[in-house]
């Protein structure tokens, strides 16, 4: 990597020794425009809102944080919950990923699809179904098993968060496991290594950056989520819920900002730790060639164990979604199981929320994918000043909880020259900047594998940056573009914690509407909308696969 960068510099240096780095940039107006534009966008839509969150509260507001035991307790609870949920969701995600992409247990294809389901529905819906199945009078716990577990508290929340966020871990770990070279394993086996040693010394270290990345994603999502804590945590309070209630119920933006700023600290620590781990141990064996040789699968008893494990998870997921489906199409779960299309008609057909969600998410996905690909290209391939900062800014949003960024958007864009609360634009920009990290990471990972020679050849033949980018680089980066596109789309369809602060009468979203409906007791309509969201995501994925003419590369995150 370093070597090739040096080579590139020497190479271009031969063309024009006298020009400084900045001077070289100035030579290309398109590049100046792109770099300047990216910097401006990141400053306005990322750093300004975050700065507002930090700058808004006065000394008195900070004092009230430390003087309110409720807030301090919520902080400790948030940290505790994030720690245990991240650990459990990551372990579960790793085991699942190992089973379906590495050990390839029987039924892996089906397990892969089922494992994705929780990722595609707003977390709130799963929380509701969880109560109906595993509550004190749940279908499984009480009716079938006669148990009375007390789920209202940290234990119940832990279970729900583990379940809701393990797919995120599974997705990002499975992509790394897939890429990890089997040639190394093959060599290890040839020199007589046993299976356990291969796993410990080769598979696990190779997967470490992926696991760290997965843990980061899970941690920031657990920190940000307030839907499930509101529903299930009982008296156990977390920061995300508290800051939401401060803003929405008590309308005290300053205190909400304090709580958000506090929430930002653990998120950033996790982010920095993860970054240093990945940088220190980044030895993924990407050759760009298909894997050769055979993989060292686990011993048979372990393989069967993993199969049973996957089957249990799959049944659990299906049970949850079964409940949601039933809720959506019967009059009232628990009271009147007559079939009806009423909820679906009211919430989906007559409502405009699903249409809005699809439209805004699609717009955000398109812009986000394009922006991240361009940004990654500039950072990886161009000698521009401050590219380390750009790189950092592009992956930072993955660590910022949606609640924090959402409150920041309210504070930054409520009035003044940038006033745009209530518009579709503010929701779209939120989605673009909050979910850009995955697309960016994929694109820059991919660019690291592309030989600069290709672009240099094009430049040497007289093409400008823009031209080389358009006709040479862009086609090569199509897979990264697709990943960014679909990831942003799916996350935007389901995001609640940020957009809940940004919606307006004209621009309501399905994900937020689900929470409001459930809050007001319209469980059937909430479930219907949930079903519609999951269904439409699957349709879009199908269409994408058809239109983009390749395997939908969601696994390459």
């Amino acid at each position, binding site marked *: 990597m370093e070597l090739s960068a040096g080579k590139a510099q020497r190479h271009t240096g031969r063309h024009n020794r006298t020009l400084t780095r900045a001077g070289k940039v100035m030579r290309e107006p398109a590049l100046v425009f792109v770099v300047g534009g990216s910097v401006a966008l990141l400053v306005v839509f990322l750093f300004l809102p975050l700065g507002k969150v930090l700058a808004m509260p006065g000394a008195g507001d900070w004092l009230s944080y430390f003087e309110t035991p409720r807030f301090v307790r919520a902080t400790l609870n948030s940290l505790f919950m994030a720690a245990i949920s991240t650990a459990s969701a990551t372990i579960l995600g790793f085991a699942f990923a190992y089973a379906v992409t590495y050990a390839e247990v029987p039924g892996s294809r089906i397990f892969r699809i089922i494992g994705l389901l929780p990722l595609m529905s707003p977390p709130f819906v799963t929380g509701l179904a969880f*109560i109906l199945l595993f509550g004190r*009078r749940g279908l499984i716990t009480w009716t079938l098993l006669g148990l009375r577990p007390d789920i*209202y508290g940290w234990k119940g929340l832990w279970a729900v968060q583990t379940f809701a966020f393990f797919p995120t871990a599974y997705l990002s770990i499975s992509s790394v496991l897939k890429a990890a070279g089997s040639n190394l394993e093959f060599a290890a086996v040839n020199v007589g290594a046993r299976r356990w040693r291969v796993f410990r010394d080769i598979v696990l270290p190779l997967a470490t950056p992926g696991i760290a990345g997965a843990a980061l994603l899970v941690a920031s999502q657990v920190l940000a989520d307030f839907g499930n804590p509101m529903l299930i945590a*009982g*008296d156990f309070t977390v920061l995300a819920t508290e800051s939401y209630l401060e803003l929405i*119920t008590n309308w005290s933006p300053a205190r909400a900002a304090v709580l958000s700023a506090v929430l930002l600290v653990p998120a950033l620590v996790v982010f920095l730790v993860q970054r240093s781990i990945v940088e220190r141990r980044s030895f993924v064996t990407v050759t760009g060639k298909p894997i050769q040789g055979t993989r060292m699968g686990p011993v048979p008893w372990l393989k069967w164990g993993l199969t049973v494990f996957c089957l249990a998870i799959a049944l659990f997921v299906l049970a949850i979604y079964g409940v949601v489906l039933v809720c959506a199409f019967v009059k009232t779960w*628990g*009271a009147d199981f007559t079939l009806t299309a009423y909820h679906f008609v009211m919430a989906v057909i007559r409502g405009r929320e699903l249409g809005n969600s699809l439209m805004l998410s699609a717009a955000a996905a398109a812009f986000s994918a394009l922006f991240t690909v361009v940004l990654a290209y500039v950072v990886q391939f161009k000698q521009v000043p401050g590219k380390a900062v750009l790189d950092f800014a592009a992956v930072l949003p993955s660590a910022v909880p949606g609640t924090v960024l959402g409150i920041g958007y309210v504070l930054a864009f409520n009035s003044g020259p940038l006033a745009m609360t209530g518009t579709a634009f503010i929701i779209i920009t939120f989605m673009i900047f909050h979910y850009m990290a995955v697309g960016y990471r994929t694109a820059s990972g991919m660019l690291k594998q592309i030989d600069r020679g290709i672009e240099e050849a094009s430049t040497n033949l007289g093409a400008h940056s823009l031209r080389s980018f358009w006709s040479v680089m862009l086609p090569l980066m199509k897979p990264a573009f697709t990943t960014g596109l679909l990831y942003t789309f799916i996350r935007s369809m389901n995001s609640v914690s940020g957009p809940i602060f940004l919606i307006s009468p004209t621009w*309501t979203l399905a994900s937020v509407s689900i929470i409001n409906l459930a809050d007001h*007791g319209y469980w059937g309509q909430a479930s219907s909308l949930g079903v519609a969201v999951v269904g439409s995501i699957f349709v879009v994925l199908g269409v994408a696969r058809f239109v983009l003419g390749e395997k939908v590369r969601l696994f390459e995150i």
Partner: protein
Amino acid sequence: MRNPAVGRCIAAAIVAVMVLGLCTALAAAQGSRELVVYVTFHENEAKRLFSLFERETGIKVKYLALATGQAVARVEAEATSPQADIFLGAGAENHEAMKMKGLLAQYASPEAAKIPKAFKDKDGYWTGIYLGPVAIIVNKDRFDAECKPKNIPMPETWKDLLRPEFRGEIVMPNPQLSSTGYTFLSSYLQKYGQAEGWAFFEQLDKNVNHYTKKGLAPAQLVATGEFLIGINFLHDQLLMKKAGFNVEIIVPKGAGWEIGSVSIIKGGPNPENARKFIDFVIGQKAQQLHTDLTMRIPTRPDVELPPGVKPLTEMDIFEEFDIIKAAADKEALLNIWSKKFAR
């Protein structure tokens, strides 16, 4: 003019512009055909009211569904150039506070005469639409199976909730986070005094499984059988009964209450339409629609009540409950509450 077709086109365009201008002028002379409402009801409920209003008057309603605190903050922030005409929903204490700050306009609606004195502002700044008493909801299936064999009677008073058999089986909203919870707390303390009142909540705390973050949650949690007994507003509980759940609902003697109200925002862009809306929303037709939809008990006596609900006059609620004092005491009471009960 060499080409007659071009001439005709230009003439037609001029006529069209003139007609358009005339229409605009006429419309302006007639007054605006629009109304802006800040509403705290759920959209599903608000929309139905507004479309009925649009059908009856031809006035188009633009609305924003907000949480109470947010709506109040918004009206305050816009005091110098109000953007909305009507503030609909939220307890009367919020309207009273806005009246004191000079944010509301007076209006003596002819329809307000039909509403009992207790449910409207004496100066005509706000009018109550519905009354929500705090009530007890019991899951009947569970009660019959678990309590009847032990000869435990169905709770009828607040004190009945203190039975040790109900330990861990009661849910109520957190007064710090929900106006429902605070209404229960403040009305009880007003009725029975600080000493007796706090002693009651200390006893009750032992039976409470958890304090919910949303006012509606207890009714849902009891309806689905998760808990045996819940405390929240009557209409939230009636919705569960309407949905088909087997629940018993009790309005205990001396129950506290809220009055969901409506008021006109001073200096709003469409004052004439705002008055029309008040006439409409406290009128019989709108109140009937609202009651049928939300199970809330209307302030007008000439509205048909949800099945099984006693009229207000027959309910033995805490009539002297001073909601304005309750609002003034809020910070102090919640401070004590959080010291005693925050978990």
